[in-house]
């Protein structure tokens, strides 16, 4: 087997194993915490009989391990159980909302990645001079803000000072693509701000790192223009760290959307998760938590695989 293929297969297998372990943590770890699910649902004033009935109904009297494998079997066949609070099918509810979440995160990714790369390249080209200082200064200010703080500044600026957008992001089925895009403009701007800084700084650092190599000096002596040096020589060699930091930030978007969805009242997976944490609806929380963890781990595997494939030393073994 080709060594690259072997590494990739190994990485994916390790990722799947990790996902399995995470599912066990999400299910069994919660069991190990103090706190009684039946009590949490019925409240402190519940009678012992009612508690016993509910435990029986939910199968809480069986050993935790049996229930875990039962749950895992359900997850693998697409059956995530039903919600405790309103009895709806969880898999269906997730299916309806996952699209909205992916649309939001996708829009943010499509805008933030090229923007971060361009800004990073400009900052590296003019390293130490004013374009670099302006870009680095602005991104440094956004890097220390949590999503919801950034969100409220953006809301205030773009709905009050310059009234361009609506402060709530409502999307519903049957909405046209463009009106949907207009509706999510504000949350997308917030998400772009949150992930932009890190990607831009890494792009700049990765390119500047490569710029110290001997072949860059050769290119300079050959008389290439600085932007050509960056584009033809530095960028291709800096691509592996850049791609992995980009994908890691896409994984970070997964967490960012949870908060941003709540800020804008956007009906999607993050809002669904937070609502059901408040209601202490454990099956929903576990299922949605597993979905988020799965996407996060998946993107992390992707980052590693791209780093492996992009490494010329591994691609062309001696």
């Amino acid at each position, binding site marked *: 087997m080709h060594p690259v293929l072997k590494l990739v297969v190994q990485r994916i297998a390790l990722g799947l194993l*990790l996902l399995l*372990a995470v599912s066990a943590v999400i299910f069994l770890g919660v069991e190990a915490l103090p706190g009684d699910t039946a009590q949490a649902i019925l409240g402190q004033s519940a009678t012992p009989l009612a508690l016993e009935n509910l435990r029986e109904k939910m199968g809480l009297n069986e050993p935790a391990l049996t229930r875990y494998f039962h749950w895992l079997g359900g997850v693998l066949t697409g059956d995530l159980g039903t919600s405790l609070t309103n009895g709806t099918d969880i898999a269906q509810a997730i299916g309806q909302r996952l699209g909205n979440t992916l649309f939001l995160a996708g829009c943010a990714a499509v805008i933030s990645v090229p923007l971060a790369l361009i800004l990073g390249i400009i900052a590296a080209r003019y390293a130490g001079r004013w374009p670099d200082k302006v870009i680095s200064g602005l991104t440094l200010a956004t890097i220390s803000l949590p999503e919801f*703080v950034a969100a409220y500044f953006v809301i205030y600026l773009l*709905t009050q000072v310059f009234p361009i957008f609506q402060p709530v992001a409502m999307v519903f089925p049957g909405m046209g693509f463009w009106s949907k895009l207009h509706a999510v403009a504000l949350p997308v701007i917030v998400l772009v701000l949150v992930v932009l800084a890190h990607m831009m700084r890494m792009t700049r650092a990765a390119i500047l790192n490569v710029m110290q190599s001997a072949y860059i000096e050769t290119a300079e002596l050959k008389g290439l223009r600085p932007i050509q040096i960056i584009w033809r020589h530095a960028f291709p060699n800096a691509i592996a760290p850049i791609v992995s930091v980009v994908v890691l930030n896409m994984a970070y978007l997964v967490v960012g959307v*949870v908060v941003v969805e*709540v800020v804008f009242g956007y009906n999607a997976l993050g809002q669904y998760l937070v609502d059901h*944490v408040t209601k202490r609806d454990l099956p929903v929380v576990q299922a949605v*938590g597993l979905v*988020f963890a799965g996407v996060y781990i998946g993107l992390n595997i992707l980052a590693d695989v791209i780093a492996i494939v992009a490494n010329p030393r591994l691609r062309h073994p001696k």
Partner: protein
Amino acid sequence: MRIPVSALFGLVLTGVFLFTAIFAQWIAPYPIDAAVGGVWEGPSARFWLGTDTIGRDILSRLIYGGQITIFVALASSLLSFGLGSFFGFLAATRGGWTDQILSRVVDLMMAIPALIVALVMLSVLPLNLTVLILVMGVLDSTRVFRLARAVAMDIAVMDYVEAAKLRGEKQRWVIFREILPNALSPLVAEFGVRFIFAVLFISTLSFLGLGIQPPLADWGGMVKENKDGLIYGKGAALMPAAAIALLAISVNLVADWVLTRTSSLKGGRGG
């Protein structure tokens, strides 16, 4: 020793924040939970920053909110430091199976975003200060663990550690008397970063309604309470948001300075 302007700015602001947090009871002009004015009053001589959604003085709530935010964040970052550096040093000095088990557990905890883990845990646990501090401290200790382990690995191969081991010192001596004093400076620089992370974490949880519960208020919870005002053009929700941002930026400035100072010290020794 010259302190750069940005670090001085950060130091002074951090100091002001800490001072108001400690002496909140004496500084705040009004009690935390008393409706003392009209709803959504603008800034005036009586209420410097105006009043909130049910007529409470925003400045007073901001001061008390800072006390809770900073206290919770400080407690959980101290916990994460204690746990993380102890287990990190243990993994580095023991090696072998201890290291393997600890490191794999940490890998597993870091495989999912901390916010998601916290949400799953908080759906079962009762919501109170102790639980919040414990959850945040344990989740964040993973990052300290990795740093402490890496730093201690470097120190553990030094001659003086070897010498201590050869003269038959116990593990406790090696960890506390040999490794800890030498690992302190990178860990202290990291502390600022962890503290800010805890501030942002507790603010986010409270904003989602899963952190500090009313009638207590912290900055994240205040943003949540006043968010409707923003649609009517009231800036009340921006005040606590600005406080979070300002605290984050000023501590970051200090941490950056400590970090560059400690690393330039190392450079000066020719290492």
